[in-house]
């Protein structure tokens, strides 16, 4: 007869094996290994058929960093990050502070501002492609009202990126606002009451109590915003498809046009690896500096 203890132990190992295997297998095969393979393939010139044989060392990377369009896409990604961090997030925080209090209709505004986030990015971008259309859209109507010839912003090298940034702002400020509101609701009522008793007005309370207590939440939204910005693709495709003259590519749309569509596995993988390294760099920096004084499991 087996002891109950042995049974329990066996049951535990069965559980671990049965419960972990599906997720571990799929995750390893379709997430972890492809990333390793991308690093390996990036040293080859290869069209994906047969085995990769033509080893080219760092040639793919060399070409990449001499390529005007890629450098531009890298810059565009950094513009997007900068605008997200320094304009979009503070704005979302401001709105969150405005409607988190006992404001009448707060729930209504919250829902409206969050609405764009749930739309598909493709749909969002198509709506805005219409709005920006110089013949038909809202921009055309507004210009027409003043009797001016409407510009085609998406076809204009100087304005296309700005137009994309506006769409990003429109779509994503709501989720950051929502994250901040959730963080604000977690601040204990007693602290806020005490501040009120001490005669602190809404602005003092915001700067002295709410924002400092919101720091962990802000860190999280910064992180999400960074990773999201680096992976931008869907919004660009319907709006400009990277044009005019390839000035509005993001790194991912560059990867799609110059790696995937031409089936250049080695070169495309090199682009992927650069994106990965930037993300990794940010993640490590985030762990080191921003997460330093937090508990584990904050994420």
């Amino acid at each position, binding site marked *: 007869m087996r002891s109950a203890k042995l049974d*329990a132990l066996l*049951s535990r190992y*069965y*559980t*671990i094996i049965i*419960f*972990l295997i*599906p*997720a*571990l297998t*799929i*995750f390893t095969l*379709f*997430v*972890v290994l*492809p*990333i390793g*393979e*991308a690093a390996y*393939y990036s040293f080859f010139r290869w069209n*994906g058929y047969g085995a990769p044989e033509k080893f080219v060392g760092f040639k793919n990377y060399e070409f990449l960093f001499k390529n005007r369009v890629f450098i531009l896409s890298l810059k565009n990604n950094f513009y997007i990050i900068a605008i997200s961090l320094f304009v979009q997030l503070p704005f979302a925080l401001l*709105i969150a502070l*405005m409607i988190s209090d006992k404001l009448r209709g707060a729930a209504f*505004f919250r829902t*409206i*501002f969050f*609405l764009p986030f*749930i*739309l598909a990015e493709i*749909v969002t971008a198509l*709506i805005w492609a219409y*709005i920006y*259309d110089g*013949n*038909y*859209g*809202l921009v*055309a109507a507004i210009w027409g009202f003043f009797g001016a010839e409407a510009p085609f912003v998406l076809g204009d090298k100087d304005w296309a990126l700005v137009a994309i940034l506006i769409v990003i702002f*429109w779509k994503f400020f709501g989720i950051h606002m*929502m994250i901040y509101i*959730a*963080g604000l*609701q977690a601040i204990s009522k007693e602290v806020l009451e005490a501040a009120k008793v001490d005669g602190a007005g809404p602005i003092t309370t915001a700067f002295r109590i709410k924002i400092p207590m919101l720091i962990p*939440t802000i860190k*999280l939204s910064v992180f999400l915003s960074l*990773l999201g910005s680096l992976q931008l*693709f*869907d919004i660009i*495709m319907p709006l400009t498809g990277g044009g005019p003259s390839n000035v509005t590519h993001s*790194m*991912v749309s560059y*990867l799609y046009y110059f790696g*995937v569509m031409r089936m250049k596995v080695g070169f495309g*993988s090199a682009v992927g690896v650069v*994106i*990965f390294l930037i*993300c990794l760099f940010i993640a490590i920096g985030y762990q080191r500096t921003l997460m330093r004084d937090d*508990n584990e*499991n904050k*994420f």
Partner: protein
Amino acid sequence: MKTNFRTYYLYLILFFLAGVIIIPLYVSVMGGFKHTGELRTNSLGLPIDWKFENYISLLVNSDFWLFLWNSTVYAVGTTFFVVLFASMTAFVFAHVKFAANKFLYNYFLLGLMFPFATAILPLFLRVRDFGLLGTSWAVIIPQIAFGLGFSIILFRGFFRQMPKEIFEAAVCDGCSYIQFYFRFTLPLSTPILATVSVITLTGSWNNYLLPLIMINDESLYSWPMGIMVFRGEYFTDWGKILAYVSLTLVPAVAFFFALQKYIVAGLTGGAVKE
């Protein structure tokens, strides 16, 4: 007096912003009802001459329904497996003590930081070499793989907060881990099951890049791919395109209003819960 003045400005800003959000949606839905000529002259107002052809021609278009159906298959398939596999994994992480527990949990966490784009070309090759191209699995399996990380975090957090007493009592009664998972954990976890399902469903439903890479066969197109093809065909025939956009917009908005609670909980839950 001063407070009223401030509130007045507050509302002014908020209503202005709400307008900026709503007007683009409104002009899109209305645009679907307008003639091309009217779109040119009257983009903001209600249609003067209501035109239903754009909407009707889509509603009787079999491709339109096919693409919606394909997306449904991708979304439901992905969600079913993500919920099952992620909850099983999180159950082990939350309840079973073993040496590699923390290590394996971090292994999945690390996956969250990996940008999907890095892996697309090798991922495509793997899917091709497994002979999955031309099937729905070409979309579903990679989506499961990339959906696991975040779902495991959400499940684990929830499972750990469940009272330990139920678990101990059940184990004493001779209940195995697997029985416990099906009989107690899952039935007691409806809020988190709903949250993970809703997030996974919407993520899959709106996904564009992955199906774009994996699917060549037009009979397997997802609706975002369909809408882009449509855009290519009717480039400036905005009435048609806006009708298509609106027909996908309306269910999304309805879905959001019905399940707002779970969507918000899922997206902000990881942010503020310890």
